[in-house]
């Protein structure tokens, strides 16, 4: 038994047409039957509202609306049909401050370009098997930004909701089939 990706719809938002086609081909190779494309954030938001896809994969740098603004709008716009939708941001940036900027906009997973098919699959695996809880505060709504942090912690767990690090983290690189 493997993932039944034919049951989901994916929206890819990318202004670089060859990259859009490549990402679309990868999703098709994974088994996704319904892959939609959009050329920028505005078109992406429109298609998101019309079709309510299960996953969004978006580039960062686009005009007139970039991927960060799209993520923020999806999380906060009253017209958004699903504020919890998993959002994977693709970008050439990998510096910590960029990752934090994306995280603060409500991005679920960060995928650095260039990437391999397995890199993309690992992000999908994370959002399927280890979805983040959401946080609503005075100035933020989006996936909990604290997924990391407990690895190596040796002390007592204080809350019922605390999770053992060994249970929480899976070395996906070492698994042949994840």
């Amino acid at each position, binding site marked *: 038994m493997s*993932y039944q990706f034919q049951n989901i719809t994916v929206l890819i938002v990318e202004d670089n047409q060859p990259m859009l086609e490549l990402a679309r081909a990868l999703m098709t190779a994974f088994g996704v039957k319904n892959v939609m494309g959009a050329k920028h954030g505005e078109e992406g938001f429109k298609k998101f509202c019309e079709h309510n896809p*299960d996953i969004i994969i978006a580039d960062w740098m686009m005009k007139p609306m970039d991927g960060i603004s799209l993520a923020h709008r999806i999380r906060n716009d009253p017209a958004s049909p699903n504020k919890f939708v998993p959002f994977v941001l693709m970008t*050439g940036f990998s510096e910590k401050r960029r990752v934090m900027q994306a995280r603060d906009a409500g991005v679920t997973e960060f995928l650095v370009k*260039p990437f391999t098919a397995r890199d993309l699959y690992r992000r999908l695996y994370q959002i399927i098997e280890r979805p983040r809880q959401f*946080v609503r505060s005075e100035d933020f709504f989006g996936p909990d930004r604290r997924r990391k942090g407990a690895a190596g912690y040796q002390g007592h767990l204080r809350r019922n909701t605390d999770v053992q690090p060994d249970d929480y983290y899976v070395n996906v690189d070492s698994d042949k089939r994840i």
Partner: protein
Amino acid sequence: MNDRQHFSQKPRRNAEFIKPPNMLKTKVGSGGLSDDILNKAENLLENNTVDFQPLAEMYLAGLMKGIDLAKESDPNDDQEYVISRMLYPGMQLKANGGMFHYPLVTRIADKLIQFLEVIERVDIEVVEIVMAFHTTIRAVVMGRVSGDGGKHGTELMRALNEACVRYFDKYQGKSL
């Protein structure tokens, strides 16, 4: 601060935690994807026939516009904006080079990004360094150097890295 004091603190702000239903899991089920599927997807990436040259030329033209803007800028201009006009096309070169069989472009552009992410102001020496990156990436693309460039590629990387290191040693006392 002891535990009692720690857990008696007033919350800094109110936050609500929500666990949305995992509809995605419900739809796709379990079992992951097999190695066979993943290998096919990797092959698809490795064998894509997209011609990177037109894309690269577009991003190189954008980088050159950024360099021109930097040349004409003065210290009172918004330096972050001026740097971003070179950084963004550089990021596109880094992102797309490796996707379309030009890993050397990705390596060089990555070094350019590291440089531009650290500098705080633009001057003539910054312009000259970015220009050297532009010239090198253009030569790689025009020469259709689609692998890692071998020994020549390593030498190009070393020369560009040394230019950055010299800049930081001279002006900021730190290296990349």
